[in-house]
Each structure stands twice: as structure tokens, then as C-alpha cells.
């Protein structure tokens, strides 16, 4: 694996614990993409993809005579195009993603690390990756591109990404589902803090469009445990809304609502065959990615 270029979100020192990044990346790549697309390495077979009607001028070597015998019509075999996979990294940069509790990284930074790592690994495998950042609107879009130039643009975009405004996931996802024409892998990195039913519905739209969807639900440990027992006033980072209440009541009410939210999102994803995982920012991102992708590799092999 060539030496990764120097970017903030790929900087081993800055990241701290990513010293095995090249090695981890290799593992990730091989495991992840095996079977999905044609590897540039020799020895891999070409897979038959589909039939289409024979038209004059087509290569007669590919006529599938068995089908002719059944249907009395001429069909040619179409093989898997040996093109790179298209991957869209959708990174939520709403205000809530700028939250962090005791850890070193905000959710946005953590998500940026995830996005950068995934983008780099896909570039390494000659796949194309693009980046879309959004809050209540699509704020920046890096087109899907192969190679170093595409990666560079993507990294630059990540490094300039700051937390923005409020969230509007449902509308954004619906919009993107319609925008992304070709079947692609859509990796959503977000805290999904929006109406869960709207979010699930929008995610299903991606599936309806035949996209493969992975949801990396990025949450801070404090958002999962609400460890505060002496807080009586909370200010919402996105809306500025302030609420005054009893600390113990806060915790119970919040956690119970959060549990319902998580169950709704997870259930919605699972029912739509959307790969869902909670990326807790207290876990090292490379550990998270490595574990997640290894499991996925075992399932897909």
C-alpha cells in the first residue's frame, strides 16, 4: 500500500491511535470489496451479469443459445462491467454533530475520520468515492471520482467542514435518493437526530432506488447514557431551545425517549436491509471500522 497522503483526518499522529492504518486499510479493503467488484489483481473471474436482446452489430460470440432454445429469440450475455464501485459518503454536519462530551473528538470529527478512511480505502481499490455534506441543506458536494485527485478534493472538503445549522435529514435523503442515478453504495455518517419515521422513510427511498445503504449512526457516549445528575438547564446546540427541569427527571425521560428512537431507527433499517451500526465516539474509529468491516466481510464471503 502506498504511503497515504498527508491530510488532517488521515494524520496518524493527529489521529493518535491510527499507526496501523496502512495495514488496517489493507485488511479493510480486501475484505470489504471482495466479491463486489472486479479486483485489479489477476486470477479473479469475470461474472456474468444479465441478458439483453440481440441487435444487429452485437458480438455473436455472446449469444446465449440456451435461452434461444427456450424462447425462440436471440439474447446475448452481458458481463459485469469491470468498472469501479461508486460510493457516496453522506456526512451530516448539522450543529448537533459538533457535540462532544469528555472524548477528544466531536461527532463530526469522528465521522470525518470514518469518511476519510473509507474514502482512502476505496481510492486504494480504484473505486470511486464522493462526499456530500449537509445540514438542513446540502452544503458541499464532491463528485464521485477515482484516483488521487478525487481523494484530494474529498479530503479538502472534509478538512473544511464545520458544524452548521439544524438537521433536516428526511428531506435531504429523499433529495439525494433522487439525485443519485446509478446504483451506488451510500454510506451515511450521521447522528440521525431528526424525526425517526421520516429518517427511516428516506432511507427506504435509497433502497427503493436499488442503492446499497450503510448507516453508521454516530453518537457520543453522553448521548447514550446521559450521565448528568446535577443538570437542571439544557440548551439545544441546534435550536438554542432551553429547558429547565429536575436532573433526575431529565435523565429518565431522555433515556427512555432515546431508547425508543434507537429502536425505531434500527428496526426501520433492518426491515429495509440497510446495514446499521452505532459508531460510539468513545471507541477508536479504526477499531470500530475494523470490527465492523470484518464482520461484514465474513457475512459476504
Amino acid at each position: 500500500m502506498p504511503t497515504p497522503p498527508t491530510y488532517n483526518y488521515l494524520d496518524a499522529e493527529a489521529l493518535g491511535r491510527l499507526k496501523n492504518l496502512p495495514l488496517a486499510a489493507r485488511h479493510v479493503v480486501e475484505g470489504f470489496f471482495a466479491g463486489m467488484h472486479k479486483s485489479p489483481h489477476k486470477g479473479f473471474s469475470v461474472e456474468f451479469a444479465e441478458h439483453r436482446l440481440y441487435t444487429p452489430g452485437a458480438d455473436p460470440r455472446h449469444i446465449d443459445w440456451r435461452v434461444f432454445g427456450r424462447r425462440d429469440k436471440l439474447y446475448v450475455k452481458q458481463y459485469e462491467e469491470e468498472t469501479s464501485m461508486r460510493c457516496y459518503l453522506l456526512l451530516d454536519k448539522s450543529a448537533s454533530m459538533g457535540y462532544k462530551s469528555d472524548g477528544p473528538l466531536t461527532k463530526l470529527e469522528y465521522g470525518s475520520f470514518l469518511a476519510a478512511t473509507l474514502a482512502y480505502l476505496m481510492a486504494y481499490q480504484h473505486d470511486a468515492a464522493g462526499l456530500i455534506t449537509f445540514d438542513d441543506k446540502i452544503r458541499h458536494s464532491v463528485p464521485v471520482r477515482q484516483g488521487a485527485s478525487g481523494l484530494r478534493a474529498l479530503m479538502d472538503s472534509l478538512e473544511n467542514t464545520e458544524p452548521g445549522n439544524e438537521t433536516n435529514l428526511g428531506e435531504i435523503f429523499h433529495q439525494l435518493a433522487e439525485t443519485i442515478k446509478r446504483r451506488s453504495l451510500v454510506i451515511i455518517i450521521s447522528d440521525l437526530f431528526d424525526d425517526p419515521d421520516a429518517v427511516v422513510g428516506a432511507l427506504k427511498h435509497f433502497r427503493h432506488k436499488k442503492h446499497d445503504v450503510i448507516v453508521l449512526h454516530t453518537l457520543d457516549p453522553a448521548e447514550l447514557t446521559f450521565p448528568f445528575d446535577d443538570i437542571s438547564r439544557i440548551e439545544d446546540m441546534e435550536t438554542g431551545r432551553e429547558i429547565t427541569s429536575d436532573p433526575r427527571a431529565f435523565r429518565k425521560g431522555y433515556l427512555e425517549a432515546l431508547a425508543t428512537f434507537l429502536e425505531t431507527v434500527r428496526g426501520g433499517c433492518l426491515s429495509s436491509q440497510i446495514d446499521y451500526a452505532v459508531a460510539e465516539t468513545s471507541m477508536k474509529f479504526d477499531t470500530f471500522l475494523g470490527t465492523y468491516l470484518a464482520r461484514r466481510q465474513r457475512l459476504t464471503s
Partner: protein
Amino acid sequence: MEFLRPLFLLGTLSAAIPLIIHLSRSRRTKKIRFSTTRFLTDQFLRSYRMSRIKERLLLLARMLLFALFAIALAQPFVRPANQPLMISEQPRTVVLVLDNSASMGYIEDGVSLFDRARDAAIEILESLEQGDRAAIVMAGRRAAGPEVVFDEPTPELGDVRQVLDTVQVSDLDTDLSRAVARAEKLVLADSREDSREVYVLSDLQDSGWEVFDESEDGSGSLDTSLFFVSVRPEQPRNLSVTAVQYAAARPMVGVPFTIRPRIHNHDHETVSSTLQLYVDDKKVGERQIEGLQPGRWVVSRFHHTFETGGWHTGYVQIHDSTLAADNRRYFAFEVLDAVHILAVNGAPSSVRRLDELFFLQAALGAAAAGEESIQLDIVTPDRLANRDLSNYPLVILANVESMPTQAVTELESFVDSGGGLLIFLGDKTNAAFFNQAFSGSNRLHGGLLPGPLIGLIGDPDSETQLTQIGKFDGNHVVLSSFDDGRTGSFSSINLKACWDMDPGDASVLMRTDSGTPLLCEHKFGEGTVMVFSSTCDRDWTNFPVRPAYLPWIYRLIGYLSQDTQGHRNFFHTGDVVPVPVSATTGLRQLLVRKPDGNIGTVGTTDDPAAPLAFTGTSQAGIYAMYPPGRPELSEAFVANISAYESDLTLLDDVFAAAPSDEAEAESQSREARVESAIREVLLPGRPLVTFVADPGDLGAASLRGRSGWKLWNYVLMLVIIVALLEPWIANRISLKYYGKPREIHVPSPESARVNQQLQRPVSPRREVERQEAGRP
């Protein structure tokens, strides 16, 4: 609303404890910026706000719990006036304090106060029902304390009625304070939750209430209802013989004896009356009392000459129709015949004026010729043993140096049996002898002397005076007339020398002005010893030539010559009459004939100073004490009504006197002022006190006073209800808003379940196979 124990109301301050805790917790207002508040939905917040209201209600409930408990401990009650009342359903325990003192014999409109009080007591008794209990305490003053007719309240109301029907007014003084204390203790006889009531039926004489140590009888309960029922004359009027002064402790035959009665007008008008003197049931004198003004007193005078010796009794009487008990004042005297006295001359002299007994004889012989009532038989010390001392009431030792041991023993026996001994010391006095023979623990009753002789003070041979007579006991019958100088003065009496002695337990009747005991009285068995520490002649003092010497000697000799009871035969009704006990006779049996003719007995007591005593002195009049079967040996004593009983100043008049603040006087009725004063002055700390001015209102007042609502049980019930509800409410709020939240399942990459539900990404080959499967 009133409270039985208002001090417990301070406990209501504890209601602030939950509030302080609540405020201290509420002060934490830490604020954070969090990623989202979307999970704190409006519904949650609305619900939470409702819970805050519930929490405030919970806080109020907790504060109420503390406050109510303190109020319950303070025992609140309500006594509504002029309202239909909720009568207590509890059985009643009633103690009737019936004032049977002499003042209750006051007659108004032909009916005595005691009869009116009895009628009121019967009215109360008739209001009781089966299951109720009653007792009676009589408020007459007795040395043994108020008479308690029943040891504890009895359900046998018929027995109580019987006592009420038969009890009579007495001649006793009033002792309301102890009677009420005794009644309060009696009403708490057992722990039954009865309605406890004490009714005091009395004229409420001011002199009948005194402050005493309640620990003697124990304090009452705060929830005992006390009713003071005033049974009084409308306008008290009374003319009484409050005291009589007698010329001497012991009259002598043929000697005019002065009797001076004091008449007091307690009326509001000027009165006139007739005063009479009776001796031995015969009227021997009469005086008119004219124009005695209201509130004033006058001292009249009778002179009577007793013609024979022995016991003579009588009384002074005034005519007054209202309160008869204090119209008479009784007396009893043992009149002295010609008295033979044995004198032991320790320093005889052929020169008369130098004889030790010269001045004594001169004083005793000062009576007119043929009328000498005191005769001296004189012996020397060595001849004393040969004399039969039983022929004499009194032996005088004048400057005796010593005497045979036998004579000392006989002298001890003589005094122990009731004889009198008068010792004059002097230059012959052998202190060593006297300290050995007349003093010491080895002698009978510790010796005839009260204590050892210490030594001589002064110089008998000097011409300068050493000292004079200083303090003396003017209350003693011998010295009483010297108090006002009527019979002479001690002021000009000088002493060159005297003996100093240890008076021990003896009464020191006279001292020098330097404090040395001069005249001591020492009880010895049934007799009395008096010691004068100087001479009876002019050797050491000029007393024999001073005017006071003659009356002093007469009184001294008259006092010591009288019978054992004579010096103490005037008592008040209710007093304990002690009977002297000698070593020879021991605890003898004696009978006492009372004024009504009934016979009583002398009994033993626990008092070591008076092991024998007579306690049945409830009647005013003349008593006679005698050995069984020997009435001819009777000795008389009298019991008179206390002068206080004649004073008809009543408590309600005292308390109802107009206060200095006119506004206060207008705002409160007379009854209210009296009731308030009784509660505050007589019975501080007893809130349930009712004053009934008219016994005719007793029924209604009883209902008012013992009814009303005792609220503390209801308050306690409320405390229990709140105490049971509080944890239930708190638990409900806690569970809903502060309990443990349900567990959150966080799917991780490791989650098998998540991964099982992941569908493998669709591959081109699999898609073809799927399509082939679907195509014909």
C-alpha cells in the same frame, strides 16, 4: 382554639425542615449545552410540569406532617360558648371537693352555705350515669391532710350519696389548695380514658388557698376539668371573737385574772353586740360592744378571780347570727392553789440579805398577807435526798455546788414524771460536778442540764458590768408580757458574770447582749427544766432589785409549777395534740372526752418527737384527757377555730377587683376575670378551669366545661393518614420521573443479531440466478 401543652407548638417550626431540604436541592442550576433536546418532548415536559405540581403537593404534605404532629402533641381543644355541644361519650370520673370548714356554716336566708354546697354536690352526683365514678374530698384543714372519704373513685354512687346526705360542716379551718391537689391525684387513680372532673364546692375563702409544694401530692393532669363553684353569701357579714389574751399561763386562786377578748367586725356596717364571759358553764361577766365600725376590731376586758384551784374551763362569746362557729373562744386553765415549792439553798447565810434565797423569798412573799399562794420549803443540798419530791410541783436549785448521787437520781425521776426544775447557777456552782451528774449520755435523757457548762464569763468581784440582757423570746408565755413592757423591762438589768453553757437542743429563752445563753428551757421526760446561768440574788446581777424581777419570777414559777398539759392546752381545730411521754410511764393509754361528749383515744404516731398524740380535734370546744377509769385525773385542753376562718374575704371578690386598665375591665365579665385569675394565679398550667359564680348554673357550666372538642385525637388521625399517603405519592412520582430508565440496546458491530439481519449485498451472479429463476 386552646392548647393543653402550648409549648409543643414550637415543634411546628420543624415543618421548615422539608422546605429547607427542598430548597437546598433546588439550588443546583447547572446548565449545559447538549447536542439535542428533541428527546425531551413537549409531552414529557408537560407531564413533568404536572409532576412538579405533585412534588409541591408532596412537599406541603411533608410540612403538614411535621406541623400536625407538633399540634397534636400540644393537645388542642375547642370550647365553643353558647353553642350546642358535642358531649363526650366517655365515662366520667368525678371528685367532689366539699368545703366543710367552719366558714361554710354561714347562714343566709335560713340556709347554711354548706347545705347549699351539699345540694350542688348532689346535683352533680345525679348527673352521673352507670359506669361513672365519684369520690369525695373534704376541704377542712387537718394536720393529716384533707379527709378523703373514698380511697379511689367508686362506681357505687349510692354510697357517695349517702356520705353527702350525712356529712356535716365542721369547725375546721379551710385547706382548699391541698384538697384540690388531693382531688386531682385521686381523679387519676387509674389509667382509664375517662372524662376527668373535679368540682370544688366552697365559699372560696381567700385564706383557704395557700401555695405549697405540689410534689407532696403530685401535680394533676392537664386534661382534668376543674370547676370552682362559688357557694358564698351575697354580702358577707360577720362579727367574731378572733383572739383572747390571758394575763398568765396559769391563774392563781384568789388572784384577779385578766381575760381580754378581741372582737372583729367583718361586716360592711357598724354593729353592736353583747360580749359574755362564761366560766365553768356560768356566765360571770358581760360587756356591751357599741358602734363597732366595719372592718375594725376592739379589745374588751374581763377580770375573774378563781376561788378554787384545779382545772377551770370557759369561753368568751359574742352574739352574731351569721357565722356562729367563731362567736366563741374557749379556754382551759389549771388554777394554782397555794403552791408548795422546794428550794435547795446552795449558799445559806445567817445574814438575811446575804442569803442566796433572800430576794427569791421576798418576791414570792410579795402577795398580801394571808394570800401567799406560793410557799417555799427550803433545804440544803445535803438534805435533798431525804425529801419526798412528789409533794412538790417544782424544785429550785439556787447556787448549789453539788449534791449526793442519790439526790440527783431522785431529781431525775421527779422531773421525768412531770415535775419542774429551776436551776440558778452562781459562784458555788461546781462545773465538774454538774457536767458529770447533770449532763452526759450516761444520764437519763442526756442529763438534767441541756448541755455541759463551758466556763465562767466575767468577774463576779468586779464592779463593772459585763453585759446586759439582750434578745429574749417574747412568744414564750413566761416572757410574752415583757415584749411590750407592760410588766417591766429587761433594759436596766446588768450582769457582772454568768456561766456559759452549751444549750444543746434546749430552747434559749433569754440571751445576754453578747449572745451567751442566759435562760434555757429543756424538756426532760414529762417535766421541764429551766436553767438561769446567773444568780437569783444580787451577787452577779442587779436583776433581783429591778421591777421586772417579781413578775418574771412569778411567771417562771407559775409556768414550771403547772401541769404537763397546762403550758400547751390551747390548740386550733385540726391540730395534733402531742402527749408528753416519760421514761417511767412510757406510751400510756389515755382517753379524751370531746366537746360533743363522745370519747376518743390517744394514739401513737411516727413522729419520734411526739410518739403519743391525739388527732380528733375537729370540733371547737373543751376536751378532757384522762387515764381510763380515772376521769378525776382529767386534764383539759381546748381547740378553737383559727382566726383566719372568721375572715370572709373571698377569692372571687379579690380576683374580680377592677383592674387598672378600664378597657380590660370592660372587655371581660366578672366571671371571666375570676376564671382567668384562678387559671393564672392559683393553678398555672391548668387550662381546663371553669368558674361557676352561681351554683344554679352548675349543670350548664358542667356541660360547657367538660364538653367541647378535644381535637388531638383527630389531629393524630390526620397525621397517620398523611404519613401513609406520603410514601405512596412520593413513590409514584419517583417511579414515573426518577426511576431507573429502561435499558437501551446499542447495536454494535459485534452484535450477532444485527449481523444476522444484514442481507448480503446483491452480486451480479446472484441477480442473474434470481432473474433466471423468475423467467420462463
